[in-house]
């Protein structure tokens, strides 16, 4: 809740209790945001660690011109996107090197289907397809969609996290939904989206 966020942060390096409280407050938001991008629990935990280490080191530099939650979301989104870019580079390299594992014959560097741990059981199949399709969205559309519909942030905060106007976010969401619809309507169960 941005309205209750403090305008400045304590120096966590000298206040471990405050850092613990901060972690407890934001851990689920950071972890879930990252999880929606990377779609792997272990990778999401690694990146969540990175985010909190960064927060610990740079809390003193937090200027207070945005809500703390906005600042934390920004760090989390950037970390997740950096990781996805790194994965894409690895994937490209893998295409050049070898597409398939010499041992199992399986396609390498392709993430397995993702089951979000918080999805209701009766919606699991549809959620799996939706998260699979989200993975294929361009970065900005992906961020707008995840923050708006998975994290359920108000559009004003999404705009602030992304450094865009509300109109721009709205337009990104329209395009994201159109792309997702197209992909889900053409979804072929025998071929991974």
């Amino acid at each position: 809740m941005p309205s209750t966020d403090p305008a400045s942060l304590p120096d966590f390096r000298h206040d471990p209790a405050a850092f613990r409280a901060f972690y407890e407050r934001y851990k689920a938001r950071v972890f879930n945001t990252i999880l929606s991008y990377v779609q792997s629990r272990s990778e999401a935990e690694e990146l969540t660690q990175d985010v909190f280490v960064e927060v610990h080191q740079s809390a003193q530099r937090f200027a207070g011109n945005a809500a703390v939650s906005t600042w934390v979301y920004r760090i989390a989104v950037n970390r997740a996107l950096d990781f996805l870019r790194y994965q894409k580079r690895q994937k490209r390299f893998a295409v050049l090197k070898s597409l398939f594992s010499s041992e199992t014959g399986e396609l390498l560097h392709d993430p397995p289907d993702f089951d979000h741990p918080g999805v209701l059981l009766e919606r699991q199949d549809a959620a799996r397809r939706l998260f699979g399709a989200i993975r294929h969205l361009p970065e900005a559309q992906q961020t707008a969609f995840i923050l708006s519909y998975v994290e359920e942030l108000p559009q004003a905060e999404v705009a602030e996290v992304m450094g865009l106007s509300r109109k721009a976010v709205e337009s990104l969401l329209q395009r994201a939904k159109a792309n997702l619809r197209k992909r889900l309507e053409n979804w072929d169960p025998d071929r991974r989206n």
Partner: protein
Amino acid sequence: MNDDDLLDPLKGLQRAEPNLFLFTRIEARLVNRIGQCGNVHVSPVALRLTLAGLALLSLINVLALRSQSDSTDRQTDTTDYQLSTANYRLY
């Protein structure tokens, strides 16, 4: 497919909880980081190169001192020789 159908899988989505020990792992990383910043870390390669450099400098100094003392001895010899040849010059 309308918006409702598209967003239906996200209805009732619960937040996932990270591992209970995640905070301990973060703390461990922070302690590691602080440890690395607190102690000046010198790599073994750099240490060996520095020692080798110092040894080389000492060797050069010793050689320079020796060659200086040799040339002083030689100068003394030359002067003695010149004096003796002067003394025994035939007129």
